[in-house]
């Protein structure tokens, strides 16, 4: 289990290669990369600044990763999350999970990014030409995406 919280960019290829190196029990790896999005239009995004709670961020990411390792038989897992000022197209986050079989890798990767969005203490400040600075509001759809893993949990318990 690896957690990195950093200002600098990351190289996806290097990170993924390092994660599986030397472990021949791994049959598949799933990864997700989050990017700074700009949908253009009147409120075109200039930049996005990510603020976080040093200490708690690492603690929560480790807890979320530990939860994924409890639920799925993972051989390796990784979360890299950036903070600071980022521009459209920049990488924000990398999540990767590796397992003997693909389904565990797919599912645990989706679980990690869904949970991370609602449980890790990060906040996004958007800069646009027209509207100036604006804190991004939490989305109900993100809560619902995170909650589906709770439902799955309840079903499994029944």
């Amino acid at each position: 289990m690896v957690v990195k919280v950093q200002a600098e960019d990351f190289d996806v290829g290097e990170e993924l290669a390092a994660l599986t190196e030397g472990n021949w029990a791994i049959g598949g790896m799933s990864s997700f990369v989050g990017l700074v999005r700009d949908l253009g239009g009147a409120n075109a995004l200039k930049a996005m600044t990510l603020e976080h709670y040093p200490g708690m961020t690492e603690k929560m990411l480790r807890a979320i990763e530990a939860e994924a390792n409890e639920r799925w038989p993972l051989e390796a897992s990784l979360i890299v999350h950036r903070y600071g000022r980022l521009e459209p197209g920049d990488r924000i986050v990398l999540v990767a999970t590796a397992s003997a079989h693909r389904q565990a890798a797919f599912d645990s990767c989706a679980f990690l990014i869904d949970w991370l969005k609602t449980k890790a203490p990060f906040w996004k400040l958007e800069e646009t030409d027209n509207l100036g600075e604006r804190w991004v509001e939490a989305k109900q759809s993100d809560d619902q995406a995170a909650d589906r893993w709770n439902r799955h949990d309840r079903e499994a318990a029944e």
Partner: protein
Amino acid sequence: MKILYFAWLRQKTGIDSENVVVPEDVSDVASLIEWLKERNEKFADALSDFGSIRVAVNQEFAELNAPVGQGDEVAIFPPMTGG
């Protein structure tokens, strides 16, 4: 007690981190927030809506009835928007 403020709570209160001595009747998160709101208008405004703020005590998410004490680290922030 150490109190940290993040995102727009930091901007509205004008403070990122502070050490405070809280009165004895501040025993849980709810009473701490009520006490902070009485400090000045900036705090009253920033903390006016319980629904739009989240709290962590010693880096664990906490409900309004969670106990807080002098040695604790309390953080107040909006709902998270990472990922």
